[in-house]
């Protein structure tokens, strides 16, 4: 999100084409996430899981156009904490983004950023899987996208945001997307409470091929997520694309090697989870580090995330699909690693090189500040939103509906009709 070409003011055709394509790539990540998640839940909840991601596309697109974008990228309304409402409804969004010198039309930037807001919100559905009412989820995600996501995007990505001005380097969303969704997921998991029977009953994934398909789509889209965040089609985009891929590879290798040692088998779910953990971790770093550090960032994230899954059993929060272990922990790893490996040779926006490149502790300290600030804000604000909704409209489905499955109780559908008897119904009208 940093501006390599600070002087560029003219619209550049190549850059514009690239950002529009990346917008589509990032959009595809949300259906990818839907499949990634749906494969991991039990079959009676599969459609509900997919639906939460799909409806997030609709809900957050609307909140983003109405106020989200303005709160994130309009002129600062005070203290670097939140943008103003001057671009609410996108009425003035055809003018340049305050403080940014884009070589693409502002509306391309608006659309590209919209996809980030959608994906980040959809990630939360992994923490509350299998027990949240559909209406409660829609309400929660609409409020959350405005109250939590948009301000945090302002902090880190608006040139007038306070974390940006404090020197945080977050290329594509280590704080704004990963730490934000992970810390929020933790808060949501605490407030909504565990699934009935967790952790005693078996809640194994019902369709791992679906999960691996989803992981593949996420990986594909992540190239657009990170390389698109160069906001130009040039050296930086190429370097970010390669770093992104290598970190996914590192994550898969790291997770599988550790898993093989710990549990005796390398699993397909481990391959998918490790790759995603690696892609998460490179998100803040993709435009600041060279290829080998990217591989190392991914491998570190794969290993640390696998260990981090144990936390939910120790501290008794049912983060059902491990949003905390994969996104929060991966996001922290990546954000801090920028402070170790950020290289001015990769991106001139790097003013203080990473600790391991001889730049001292300056950048690492700034990254640490970003981690703490994003964690504290996202966790606290999400906790409050979820608590208020629980006390008013309620978050959970009825116990019977949870046992029966959300597909049937929330959507009056079932994902699979595999046996001769399952298709035996009568038309009631």
């Amino acid at each position, binding site marked *: 999100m940093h501006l390599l070409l600070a002087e560029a003011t003219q619209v550049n055709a190549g850059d514009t084409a690239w950002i529009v394509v990346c917008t589509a790539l990032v959009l595809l990540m949300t259906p990818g996430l839907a499949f990634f998640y749906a494969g991991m839940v039990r079959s009676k909840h599969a459609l509900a899981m997919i639906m939460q991601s799909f409806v997030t596309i609709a809900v957050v697109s609307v909140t983003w156009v109405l106020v989200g974008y303005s709160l994130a990228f309009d002129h600062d309304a005070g203290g670097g904490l939140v943008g103003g409402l001057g671009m609410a409804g996108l009425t003035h969004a055809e003018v340049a983004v305050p403080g940014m010198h884009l070589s693409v039309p502002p509306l391309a930037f608006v659309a590209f950023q919209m996809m980030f807001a959608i994906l980040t919100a959809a990630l939360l559905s992994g923490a509350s899987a299998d027990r949240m009412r559909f209406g409660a989820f829609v309400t929660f995600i609409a409020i959350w996208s405005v109250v939590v996501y948009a301000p945090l995007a302002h902090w880190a990505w608006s040139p007038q945001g306070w974390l940006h001005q404090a020197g945080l380097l977050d290329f594509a969303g280590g704080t704004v997307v990963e730490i934000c969704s992970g810390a929020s997921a933790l808060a949501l998991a605490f407030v909504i409470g565990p699934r009935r029977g967790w*952790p005693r009953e*078996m809640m*194994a*994934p019902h369709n791992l091929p679906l999960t691996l398909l989803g992981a593949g789509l996420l990986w594909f889209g992540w190239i657009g997520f990170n390389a698109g965040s160069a906001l130009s089609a040039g050296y930086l985009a190429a370097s970010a694309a390669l770093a992104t891929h290598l970190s996914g590879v590192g994550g898969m290798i790291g997770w599988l090697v550790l*898993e093989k040692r*710990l*549990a005796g*088998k390398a*699993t397909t*779910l*481990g391959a998918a*989870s490790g790759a995603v953990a690696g892609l998460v971790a490179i998100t803040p770093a993709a435009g600041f580090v060279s290829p080998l550090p990217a591989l190392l960032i991914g491998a570190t994230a794969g290993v640390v995330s*696998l260990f981090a*899954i*144990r936390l939910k*059993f120790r501290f008794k929060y049912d983060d059902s699909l*491990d949003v905390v272990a994969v996104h929060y922990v991966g996001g922290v790893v990546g954000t801090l690693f920028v402070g170790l490996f950020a290289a001015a040779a990769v991106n001139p926006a790097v003013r203080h090189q990473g600790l391991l490149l001889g730049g001292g502790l300056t950048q690492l300290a700034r990254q640490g500040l970003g981690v703490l600030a994003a964690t504290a804000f996202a966790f606290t604000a999400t906790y409050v939103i979820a608590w208020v909704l629980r006390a008013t409209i309620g978050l959970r489905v009825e116990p019977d509906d949870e046992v029966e499955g959300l597909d049937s109780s929330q959507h009056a559908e079932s994902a699979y009709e595999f046996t001769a008897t399952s298709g035996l119904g009568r038309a009631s009208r």
Partner: protein
Amino acid sequence: MKLITAIVKPFKVSDVRDALRDIGALGLTVSDAQGYGRQRGHTEVYRGAEYKIDFVPKIRMEVLADDDDAPRVIETIVSAARTGKIGDGKVWVQDVEEVVRVRTGERGAEAI
């Protein structure tokens, strides 16, 4: 008349079917089943969470036979399904009061 029910390992189903066909047994019904006897299940691990799977997939095979044919059918199933390892399954036999062929209405041994 007898109803012979066999629980066998899934990969032995085609051997049993072929052996029954060779002795001229004319009908066979199969369905998926899960269970355990002396053979216990296995462990699966998902992101570090371990689950014990108690039930093992099996196939239930059901054959109707005349009283005279039943011993031969049982013997055929047992020898075709045997691997000698734990978990080969079981065969049991019940008396059957009546059998009716739906298409023709034939009853008793004629309907088998």
